[in-house]
């Protein structure tokens, strides 16, 4: 019995939900400063079009 839950298939789900969240946090912290990329012209062009053509249309 874990945390008052008898069935392993259910307490495993409870524990894995917490573990998955911890995994996300650990991954996020470990990679906090990784993956920075320079903003390219195509990124800015994309964002400009998103603003003018898509957002303004709404």
């Amino acid at each position, binding site marked *: *019995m874990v*945390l*008052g*839950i*008898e*069935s392993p*298939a*259910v307490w495993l*789900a*409870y524990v*894995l*939900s*917490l573990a*998955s*969240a*911890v*995994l*996300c*946090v650990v*991954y*996020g*912290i470990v*990679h*906090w*400063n*990784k*993956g*920075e*990329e320079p*903003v*390219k012209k*195509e*990124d*800015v*062009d*994309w*964002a*400009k*079009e*998103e*603003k003018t*053509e*898509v*957002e303004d*249309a*709404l």
Partner: protein
Amino acid sequence: MDLLSIILVIVYLMATGYLGYLGYKQTKTAADYLVAGRSANPIVMALSYGATFISTSAIVGFGGTAASLGMGVLWLTVLNIFVGIFIAFVFLGNPTRRMGHHLDAHTFPELIAKRYDSRLLQVLCALIIFCFMPLYAMAVMVGGAEFMAPIFHISYDSALYIFALIVAAYVIAGGLKGVMLTDAMQGAIMLVGMAILLVATYGRLGGVTEAHAALGALKDQVPGFLKAIGHQGWTAMPKFGFAEPGLAPPGGVAYHMWWILVSTIVMGVGIGVLAQPQLIVRFMTVKSKQSLNRAAAAGGIFILFMTGVAFTVGALSNVYFLQQEEIVCQVVDDAALLDAGADGKGKLALVPANASDEIKARAKRFVAYRLPGASDDSPLNYVLWTDKMEIVQGEGDAPDTLKPRLIAVLRSVGPGTTLQGNTDTLIPAYVRSALPHWFGVVFMLTLLSAAMSTMSSQFHTMGTALGRDVFEQFAHHQHGSKSIHVTRFAIIVGIVVALVLGKYVRGNIIALATAIFMGLCASSFLPMFVFGLFWKRMTKPAAVASLLVGFLTSGFWLLFVNGKTAGGLGLCQAWFGKPNLVPADWSLTWTVVDPIVVALPLSILTAVVVALATKPMDKAYVDYVYGGPKPQA
């Protein structure tokens, strides 16, 4: 509504309005950050993504499902976090962003169209989105209305109209633009609301371990109709197996619950979220892989607090309803009769005084009561009578106290539901009954936030699907002003269709409608989306074939095989004179296997086989798709 509630609602609406105004004045949508070459705060980004991801459907609909099926629904939380956040952010987010920017794609259908150089795919994807997303929007709207109705003592229909009106006003006032601060504020409110709900529930039930143990001890209380399909208690998984071919009930339905829980609820929604067009597009608004890394941390925690809390509290509400619930009220009639028809499967309706003895004999006994403050002409509330129920009559003018002693799903049985209840009403009923009134109002704001952020992105996606992805392709002029009208028209149609569906399809519908939409998206879009991102050998015919196989298999399964949907829609009955096409000598379990179990593998297989069997796409074009220069026409 008391003064505190009114103040809370006004402060909330003012804050939403103010942040929306800031958004207009100071350019703060995700695209604005990117134009300025900056990234949004990772917590703001994660909250805003999470608020779009999680809606009233997850909290009210799936929370209610957990009250009925038990804590096994937490496997969906595992998938929500591991697949919906970790895999999505770490593996899919950045390639989507890069490809979207490089190909100048602004919607999911456009991304697919440019990856495969196919307008046909763009139109097909957009039509699927436009036709079926109202189903998901309906689920979100019903979730809000089911909550609002009991909190404000109004009818479900009125709550549905008010909710639709608030959402429409929000959408028209600029909600569609996805102003990040507004979304993030909504996410923050959701986080606070759910955290209070969790702490209050565990506190009320004596602690974490104690609450779970108390829930486990209730396994003898599982109602017959759930036990028959394999329910083994709320802290156990249902019975697993596949019924023998040709076996009739009871043996034929003995494993139904496992397949509903695992194939529809956990897999359908858990995997389906990867192929949600409105979430895929959000990755394109991110500045870099770094932003995604950082947002993954906050996203994991956020989803844990949303679905993890909703499912846990949903299941635990059984302990509260059975052991602790006390309704302070005025008992009007302790022997009201409600009848579910001759076969006992119809919707319960009050038995008139002049009904036949036969009807009176088969009818169920209910207690009718009125809550304090409700006017004499307001509709009565009903609770199923059992011999364990206690009614303590108040002396003189003092109110009575009713202790129903029912588990959650039976507590939801009443006029308009079948004898199997309406699990969509359970989370609202629990919050209203177990927690202070002020929290009911805070929780309503939580749900309103959850609904507004999700629905604005749903309507954004529906609008652009018809305007940009269908109309502009046929009108042969790029980004014209006419397409703006089509986009707006599509949004209005989406809202109206969701509203009409919500009015007529009530009862245990939220989780089902969400699962149908997400399963359909997964089977139709997921293989071509993921292969499109990572596999250069994937071809246009393979994408078209995979889309069609996934979509048509899902459609066929929903219309002619799945007992619930085929029976509910009635097309199979009308065409073939039977509720579904599963042959009599096949296992009855097939009627509860979710379409995704069959359609997704078929769709993946089709994609791989057709891709390998067809000519590779033009190398120059493929190089362009994966970051190279645009080939000369």
